[in-house]
């Protein structure tokens, strides 16, 4: 029976009511928060929901749950499994093929390490009990599920470690056994026992006797689907890692079982034949979150649910390095890198340490030819060691096979493991090294061959009377790396004979693509008054498209002036986007220059000229000494900071073959501006200023000038440019209404969110597209978190610190000269309403982070700036703010002596009615106003004392005069709370009139 003794599900975030604030009453978000809070805490909600769901199920045989399918006779199914039931997976053939190959590879690697892999696929309930599914329209495609396609692959090339259990379960079902409960998604104890036996028999090579009497078993029904359908939540959270001690510690074997919720039910049986069993809920081997070492186990079981096959992730590189490590990588056959054939937008050149590949991005491909396929006797894995200058994704396809592999490349060296498909004697792999232009170094390519039948010692066949425990002793126990040489599971692969000609993967298609690619635009040398125009005609396929073993050895040859028009050489530089600013490193930047050409250049040289005058900035430098296949690429090192610039590129051996970039670009400072609406308004409020021509904004993956809009951003950028003379790029990824913490998610997103399409990841994508490095990050946020009223000072402080250190600095390159990427916090502005507590808490937290986290700075205090009476500053206030933040940046760059206004250094009670506040100046020497200063409060016993006047006593002292004498403990504060009195704030006499910073003396001040 279903146990309904559960707590009502609480899946909402509004656990506390939003704090009452007078002006927040005019904000829709307040009511949304309140409505949510009310719904969450409405006492009858649970019973009403239960009633509705009960009626839906029992009366209408339906449910609104997106996770449950109600079938015939009240049978419940996991909704995901119904998709499998519909059998419309024909478009997933490539994935099924890849999955089968992946399991072959894991099997061989595991066996090579002396261990045993068992793969089972837990059939969905709808596969074993289709008769109760009810009406579900058939899929309109191929009548195959992913499991069917996987089986096709496994049948064609048997996977020895595969323990197929759907047939077994069907047989038991025919015998009258109930293997799945009506209200459960997964098999019951009986089903688990049947599957466990299949696994055990696989471990012991079918030598384990079947047990046929399961009558004593408890079915172990949990009614998980019924719980979900009824809108109830289980009382205990499901753990993703569980350790089981075996019932006999003398058994030498240990096992790890990967799988889903159903896998836990296997553990009781497994723990009888292993010394210890770890059950990990993960569809990835190894798991991403637990850090387990595969080498610690003797048997690895992967029991994936049929409906989760699509998310199976086999991390070959980790499995290989964990189980085989360095020992097995020696003396493996090497693939001759001379067989690399550049095909499109790519060139390859042999270097001493590998093959240098220049790639223009997503379209670029080269072929790796004559790679041996796997066959029935030997399974092969190709390992590519490739070095990339930036994180990227490599894509590998195989001609004539449904084979597409994508592998992430990290910055630096990555070993990529590719299981090679079964097939002909040799394969041709077509490889796109990465989606961004860049230089790659293919260090090596090696083949690992594994014999079909491993020599892992198997357990002796147990006697019929032998218990599970006794039988398990028969399995050979091999610790990590033990006697690997002696077992020698690898089969050498003789290098394929060199072929005379080059067999490209898809020759017919490649040629026209190359020809399209090299259609030239008119090439105009602006220095030349006669303006040479190069023909637009389609040239023949360039000789450089030949494979590198032909082209690598060619002699430098001057271009022939008598060439036919089709052969007129030309060169075309790949342009940056108009207005792009590259982050400087020190005072210059190393700039990638690439492009295409027609002809036979000995080498390609490039220079940088000023965009407006064509004055040379970087002289002609050879950037590519071995351009090939119509591609050149190289680095222009040390391009000095400044702009705007243009590229010029030309053949070394024919200076008339030249191209002049048309898009201006520069080397300067990139600064991210993130936060919520006040940061957004920094780009949009006010048209008082005109942006400097060197100031550009990057948003929505476009570089744009600022024109006259956005006082804050323009004041900020202009001041930097006027002082530094550099282009400044502002990366604008602020989001209106965004919170920092999840509680402050007003459905506009929150910055701690790491989901795929979160505002943070969109920001990262923008930064990545802008080059991946920044010099500063400016953060202007806090209102959303303050408005909730539930985010404490500690919580915001912890979150902001984590955001800075674990997110921003971990994910974004530091383009500054400081140890850490500087993070500048603009303090939250004076609010138009709201309670003091939450607002003060956020400001305190911002101060804490600025003080305690290395290279975090308070970029500007803003309490003295006027807001529009709503949530945002006035346009003049934005101008002021822009100057203040610029001052901070200039200070950090060593261009200014100070960036903060005065601060309070001490408070002294002169007598019962007069208090002196001592201040310390940083930029100024005196302050204003001399009298009528506002914003000061004296609090005695939690009640404010009446302040009669606050005046300047001297340049370093402010005197507060009280109306009535005070006798007890008191404390003084300045600009405290949500809406402090800023009618006459203290500002110093520095050129920026910087404000006295807020102050709170929580202890009794000095008498």
């Amino acid at each position, binding site marked *: 029976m279903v146990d309904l003794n559960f707590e009502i599900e609480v899946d909402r975030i509004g656990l506390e009511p939003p704090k009452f604030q007078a002006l927040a009453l005019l904000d829709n978000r307040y009511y949304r928060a309140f409505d949510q809070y009310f719904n969450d805490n409405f006492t009858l909600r649970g019973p009403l929901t239960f009633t509705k769901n009960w009626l839906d199920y029992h009366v*209408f045989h339906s449910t*609104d749950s997106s996770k449950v399918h109600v079938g015939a006779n009240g049978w419940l199914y996991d909704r995901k499994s119904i998709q499998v039931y519909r059998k419309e997976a024909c478009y997933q053939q490539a994935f099924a093929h890849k999955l089968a190959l992946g399991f072959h590879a894991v099997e061989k690697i595991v066996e090579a390490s002396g261990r045993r892999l068992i793969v089972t696929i837990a059939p969905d309930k709808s596969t074993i009990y289709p008769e109760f599914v009810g009406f*579900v329209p058939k899929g309109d495609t191929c009548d195959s599920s992913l499991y069917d396609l996987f089986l096709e692959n496994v049948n064609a090339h048997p996977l020895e470690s595969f323990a197929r259990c759907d047939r077994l379960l069907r047989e038991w079902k025919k015998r009258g056994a109930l293997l799945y409960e009506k209200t459960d998604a997964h098999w019951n104890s009986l089903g688990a026992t049947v599957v466990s036996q299949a696994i055990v028999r696989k471990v012991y090579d079918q030598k384990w006797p079947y047990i046929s009497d399961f009558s004593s078993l408890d079915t172990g029904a949990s009614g998980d689907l019924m719980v979900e359908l009824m809108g109830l939540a289980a009382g205990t959270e499901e753990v993703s890692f569980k350790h089981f001690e075996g019932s006999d510690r003398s058994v030498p074997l240990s096992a790890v079982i990967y799988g889903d919720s159903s896998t836990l039910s296997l553990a009781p049986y497994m723990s009888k034949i292993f010394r210890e069993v770890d059950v990990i809920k993960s569809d990835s081997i190894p798991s991403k979150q637990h850090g387990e070492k595969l080498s610690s186990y003797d048997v690895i079981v992967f029991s994936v649910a049929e409906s989760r096959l699509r998310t199976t992730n086999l991390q070959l590189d980790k499995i290989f390095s964990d189980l085989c490590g360095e020992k097995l990588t020696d003396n493996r056959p090497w693939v001759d890198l001379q067989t690399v054939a550049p095909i499109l937008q790519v060139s390859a050149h042999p270097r001493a340490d590998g093959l240098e590949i220049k790639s223009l991005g997503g379209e670029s491909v080269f072929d790796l030819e004559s790679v041996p396929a796997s066959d029935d006797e030997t399974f092969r894995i190709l390992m590519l060691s490739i070095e990339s200058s930036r994180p990227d994704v490599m894509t590998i396809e195989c001609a004539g096979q449904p084979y597409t592999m994508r592998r992430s490349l990290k910055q630096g060296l990555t070993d990529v493991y590719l299981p090679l498909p079964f097939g002909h004697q040799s394969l041709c792999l077509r490889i796109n090294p990465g989606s961004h232009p860049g230089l790659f170094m293919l260090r090596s390519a090696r083949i690992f061959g594994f014999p079909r039948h491993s020599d892992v010692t198997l357990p002796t066949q147990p006697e019929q009377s032998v218990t599970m425990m006794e039988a398990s002793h028969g399995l050979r126990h091999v610790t990590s790396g033990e006697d690997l040489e002696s077992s020698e599971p690898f089969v050498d692969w003789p290098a394929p004979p060199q072929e005379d000609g080059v067999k490209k993967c898809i020759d017919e298609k490649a040629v026209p693509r190359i020809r399209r690619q090299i259609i030239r635009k008119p090439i105009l040398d602006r220095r030349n008054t006669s303006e040479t125009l190069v023909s637009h005609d389609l040239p023949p396929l360039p000789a450089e498209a030949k494979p590198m073993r032909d082209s690598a050895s060619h002699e430098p040859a001057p271009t022939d002036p008598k060439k036919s028009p089709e052969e007129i050489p030309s060169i075309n530089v790949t342009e940056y986007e108009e207005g792009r600013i590259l982050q400087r490193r020190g005072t210059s930047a190393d700039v990638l220059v690439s492009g295409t050409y027609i002809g036979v250049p000995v080498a390609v040289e490039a220079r940088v000229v000023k965009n407006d005058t064509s004055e040379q900035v970087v002289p002609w430098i050879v950037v590519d000494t071995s351009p090939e296949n119509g591609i050149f690429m190289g680095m222009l090192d040390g391009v000095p900071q400044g702009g705007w610039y243009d590229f010029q590129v030309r053949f070394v051996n024919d200076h008339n073959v030249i191209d002049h970039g048309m898009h201006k670009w520069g080397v300067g400072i990139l600064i991210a501006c993130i936060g919520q609406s006040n940061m957004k308004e920094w780009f949009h409020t006010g048209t008082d200023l005109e942006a400097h021509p060197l100031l550009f904004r990057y948003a929505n993956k476009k570089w744009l000038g600022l024109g006259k809009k956005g006082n804050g951003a323009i004041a900020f950028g202009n001041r930097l440019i006027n002082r530094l003379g550099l282009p400044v790029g502002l990366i604008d990824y602020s989001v209106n209404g965004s919170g920092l913490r999840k509680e402050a998610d007003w459905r506009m997103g929150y910055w701690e969110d790491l989901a795929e399409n979160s505002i943070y990841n969109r920001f990262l994508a923008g930064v990545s597209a802008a080059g991946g490095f920044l010099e500063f990050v400016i953060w202007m946020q806090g209102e959303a978190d303050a408005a909730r009223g539930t985010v404490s000072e500690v919580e915001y402080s912890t979150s902001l610190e984590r955001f800075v250190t674990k997110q921003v600095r971990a994910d974004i390159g530091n383009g500054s000269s400081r140890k850490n990427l500087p993070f500048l916090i603009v303090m939250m502005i004076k609010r138009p309403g709201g309670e003091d507590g939450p607002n003060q808490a956020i400001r305190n937290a911002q101060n804490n982070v600025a003080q305690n986290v290395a290279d975090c700075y308070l970029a500007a205090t803003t309490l003295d700036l006027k807001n529009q009476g709503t949530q945002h500053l006035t346009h003049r206030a934005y101008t002021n703010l822009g100057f203040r933040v610029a001052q901070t940046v200039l200070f950090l760059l060593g261009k200014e002596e100070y960036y903060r206004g005065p601060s309070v250094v001490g408070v002294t009670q002169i007598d019962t009615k007069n208090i002196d506040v001592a201040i310390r100046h940083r930029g100024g020497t005196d302050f204003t106003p001399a009298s009528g200063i506002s914003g000061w409060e004296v609090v005695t016993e939690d009640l404010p004392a009446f302040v009669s006047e606050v005046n300047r006593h001297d340049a370093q002292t402010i005197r507060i005069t009280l109306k009535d004498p005070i006798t007890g403990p008191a404390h003084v504060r300045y600009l405290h709370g949500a809406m402090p009195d800023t009618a006459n704030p203290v500002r110093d006499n520095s050129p920026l009139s910087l404000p006295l910073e807020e102050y709170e003396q929580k202890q009794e001040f000095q008498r």
Partner: protein
Amino acid sequence: MVFSSIFFLFAFLPTVILCYHAERLLSGNGLRNAVLLFFSYMFYLYGAAGFLLVLALSTFADYLLGLLIDRDNRRKHLWLGLSVFLNTGLLVYFKYANFLIEELREILNSFGLSFVGWEEVIFPIGISFFTFQKLSYVIDIYRGKSRPTTNVVDFALYVAMFPQLIAGPIIRFSHVSKQLKKRKESWNQFHAGAMRFCWGLAKKVMIANSCGQIADVAFGLDLHTLDTKTAWLGSLAYTLQIYFDFSAYSDMAIGLGMLFGFRFPENFNLPYSATSITDFWRRWHISLSLWLRDYIYIPLGGSRRGAFRTYLNLAIVSAVCGIWHGANTTFFLWGLYHGGLLVLERATGLSDLPSERYFVVRRFATITAVTAGWVLFRSEDISQAIEFLCVMFTPRDFPVSYQLSLVLNYRNIVFSLIAATAFFLPGEILRHGSAMIEKRAVVIAASAVVILFLLPYCAALIAGGPKSPFIYYRF
């Protein structure tokens, strides 16, 4: 705030009823309108917090202008013009500015020019309804059909009364002016109002939402996978959804009014029993139809200036009716479509036929035409509407889509079939209001059913089902 929400049903409404009747006991009804106004503004604040000032200030402006029109006879044209300008200006700005700017931007783009700097205007809910009410108030005063009220609270309550503030019915001041001053609350009326409200609630959460689930899937399908039967199923489901959704709101508004002693005019009269499009518009959204007739069609000349001018006037009024629903080409074309049908009926004399002639054929033709119109109304854009209509009228058969099978459950089918009886009802039946006031045994029995079964089930659907606001909330 949505009537069919937990907060409204279990917090707001009980509080209002409690305060309203407590006020009766404590101060003898002297402040009952003020109490209702306070809660009406709270109601609006909850749904459109930033626009309460717009509502309050524009109400006050019309209050003053109404008085000026009445008292300053020489310049009453001026005051009326000012009021019309203010009201239509606000309506155009909030409701149509985004659309107009977008059109302008596209035109400029086609000439290679760009238009930047426009920030999207947020639409305050209910503005279409309360603007029309205020306009009717000043125009009626100008025409001498009614006198202005001197009591600003009464006028503000007339504009902002929460039962009908968001989605009508559009009430004339003359209908409620006496009730604002003198009305007598009674238990019978309260009971009838409560029943009417529950009836509306049930229509919304049981019937309209069930039809809506089917319609949403059908209109959300990729048009390449849509076949004729699904298209018809979706369009008929939407036809039923919009009727039961909007009429449910009107029932609830009328019921709520009765709780506080008001009698609002009916807004629907079995529209799917109409025998012609002309008849349909006498039965559908009656308060809007009458408003358009009295304040646009008749001032344009009505049917008194010859056939062509009559047709033109019908087309104009229909287009206004369409665009009143929102700044979208589909609404505009939906209005023109109905205008075209009205003109056709008038030109061919179909609208003058006795209702019993060709009864079945005419009802079938009318409901088919209305259903096709709703496709235009429901579609995201013209291209979707055209393709959807093409699929409806060009036979195409695909297997039932999986998404559709998910919503074709017993609950939705049962409630949709109950809803479909609306297509077969006779043209005239007893009015709900009067029937419910009379204490017949059947009414008492129905009340027991409602309180014991229907209301708890509706509350359960609201608490446990997906949120589904009224369609007309966005107009």
